[in-house]
C-alpha cells in the first residue's frame, strides 16, 4: 500500500476520533438538553463520517473494491442522525424540560403566548 494513501487514511481516522471525543466532552459539559443535543448530533455524525470514509479508502486500496455497505452506511447515518436529533429535541420541549439559565430567548413559548 502506498505511503501517501496510508497517511490519508490515518488523517481521516484521527480526525474522526478527535471529533468524537470533542462531542463526548460537549455532551458531558454543556448545561442543558438542547445544547447537549447540538453537540451530540452534529459532531458525532461528522466524526463517524470521517472514520467510515477512512474505512472506504482502506478497503478500496487494499482489495480494489468499493464496499457498497460502507457507502450506504455513510449515506444513511448522514441522513438520519440529524433527524433523530430533531425528533428527540422536540420531544424534550413538549415534555417540558427546562432551558438553562444562560439562555436568553425562547421563541416557541413567545409564539404560543400570542
Amino acid at each position, binding site marked *: 500500500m502506498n505511503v501517501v494513501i496510508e497517511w490519508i487514511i490515518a488523517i481521516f481516522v484521527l480526525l474522526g476520533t478527535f471529533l468524537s471525543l470533542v462531542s463526548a466532552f460537549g455532551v458531558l459539559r454543556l448545561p442543558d438538553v438542547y445544547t447537549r443535543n447540538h453537540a451530540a448530533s452534529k459532531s458525532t455524525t461528522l466524526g463517524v463520517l470521517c472514520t467510515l470514509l477512512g474505512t472506504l479508502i482502506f478497503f478500496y486500496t487494499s482489495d480494489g473494491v468499493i464496499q457498497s455497505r460502507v457507502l450506504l452506511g455513510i449515506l444513511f447515518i448522514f441522513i438520519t442522525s440529524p433527524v433523530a436529533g430533531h425528533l428527540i429535541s*422536540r*420531544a424534550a420541549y413538549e415534555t417540558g424540560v427546562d432551558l438553562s439559565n444562560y439562555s436568553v430567548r425562547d421563541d416557541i413559548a413567545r409564539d404560543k403566548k400570542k
Partner: protein
Amino acid sequence: MLDIVLKIGLIGCSLSSAILLIRVIKGPSVPDRVVSLDAMGINLAAITALASMIYHTTAFLDAILLFGILSFIGTVAFSKFLEKGEIIENERRH
C-alpha cells in the same frame, strides 16, 4: 504506522463512549439519556469500522449499517413515546 493510528482511534472512540456513559447515568432528564445513547450507538458503528480495519476483514461491514439503522429506529420510537405516550397508535381515524 497505520496499526498504531488505528489503535489510537480505537482508544479514543472507547473513551468517548465511556464519557457518554457518564451522561447516561447522571443525566437529569430522560431526553438526555436518549441523546447520549444515540451518540453511543453511532460511536459503536465507528468502533466496528476500526475493528474491521484492524482485523483486515470485510465481514463486519454489515454491522455498521445495522447499528445506524437500529440507533435511528430506537431514537424515533423513544421520542414518539415521550411525546404521545404510545409508540404505535391503535385507534383508527376515518
